[in-house]
């Protein structure tokens, strides 16, 4: 199954449910991830963002750089969000980059 190339986090301006339309490959997360090498904060992301299909945006179609860029925009307020703006402010750019790279390594992002 081909992954969708375009992807947006849900935003408060216009089409807040856009993200819901993305039907991503429903690979199961039945096998828990290895957190033994995870950078601070990374494993908590998976409480909401799974590889499976839910109402929440999956990270599957995003690259590590996409995630880092999104976190920077949420942190600066350059991008609206229902909730990620509140989370992103708790992480420095360096922490966000390490998290994004770990998520990609673990197969949560591409």
């Amino acid at each position: 199954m081909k992954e969708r190339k375009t992807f947006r986090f849900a935003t408060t301006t216009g089409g807040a449910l856009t993200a819901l339309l993305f039907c991503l490959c429903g690979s199961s997360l039945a096998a828990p991830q290895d957190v033994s090498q995870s950078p601070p904060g990374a494993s908590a992301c998976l409480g909401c963002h799974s590889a499976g299909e839910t109402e929440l945006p999956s990270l599957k179609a995003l690259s590590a750089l996409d995630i880092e860029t999104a976190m920077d925009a949420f942190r600066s307020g350059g991008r609206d969000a229902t909730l990620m703006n509140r989370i992103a402010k708790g992480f420095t750019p360096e922490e966000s980059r390490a998290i994004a790279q770990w998520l990609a390594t673990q197969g949560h992002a591409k």
Partner: protein
Amino acid sequence: MRLTRRTLLAASAAALAAPALAQTQGKVVVIGGGFGGASAARFLHRMGLDVTLIEPNAQYISCPFSNAVIAGLRDLSQQTFTYAALERQGIRLVRQMASKIDNSVRRVTLADGVMISYDRLVLAPGIDLNFEALPGYDEAASNLMPHAWKAGAQTMLLRQQLEAMNDGGTVIISAPANPFRCPPGPYERASLIAWYLKNNKPKSKLLILDSKDAFSKQSLFTAAWKEIYGDRVEWIGLSGGGKVIEVKAKDKIFVTEFGEHKADVGNVIPPQRAGKIAISAGIADQTGWCPIDPVTFEAKLAPHIHVIGDACVGGGMPKSAFSANAQAKACAYAIGTLLRGENPAEPKLINTCYSLVKPDYAISVAGVYAPAKGLLADVQGAGGVSAANASASVRAAEAQYADGWYKTITQEVFG
């Protein structure tokens, strides 16, 4: 799955990490199979550790979304999970109560007398309702005035009482002082019961008697109640005489310092403390909760025992399923690191709690936490609640995200 260069890269990166994992050895026992304990068992096992999960119940009935069951919006089966996936994964499941912890020899004794030894113990017993803290409210009283603060039969009892109530009746919820499981929970419950009353028993009212003057997401709840439920919902805080000091269960009466309130349906959310085993093993302090190290979750009162979830205390993290799951992963990481003889890096934790005000209207609170001065403290500038002036579509989106969160977390923990 289509094999691409990226998946190959990911696979090779995982292979590179493997030698470090192989060195992680040790026997870990986890007590309690809720969001915290079951998560910890899975993540510890994934790291190659020998994991035993001690949990007497064959099924887990989850509290998040159980307020929707009370309001008739959801079935209890949607709250019910088994441990089959954990057993398939290779986690040893022991269906018994842990009756004793002898930490000097690192050993747990089960109800049948069998002993299990550990290198590290993860204690995730959740809460016990404190049936000694509120005069008149014991376990027998909870059959007349349910607490419904542990999901299951109590949830259904409260729902049935609401269904049996005549239109024009009064529902009363009493909320405890902090800290307690799920800080926004009483107010989500009030909202969804008000939704049920509005649609089914429109002459009825709901009263919240509170032992505090401020509560989670207060301004958002208060505004939403006024907008959606008008005069149907009334809240009385501590300084207004809301503190319940006694319950007369037979007559469904809540006694406050200011007088008595008679309910047609009475829901008593009593004071709470860490699960019994934490108290009997001396891991909880005089507050009834277990203080922990914010990096390793090791109990301050017992080395080699790590406490996660509702039973632990040590900073600003609320007692929620999200917190328990995030703590479980941070704790698994710390235990793995300690068992390799290394020092764990300082963690960062996240909490997110959604509350439904009605089926297509949710509000959230989020926080980011890091160790500071021996506690898991709020990271300044982060976190907070949903915008006060958000549009209906944002409230609807948050309700959708609440559903998504529940699917994701229950899949990660039990799926």
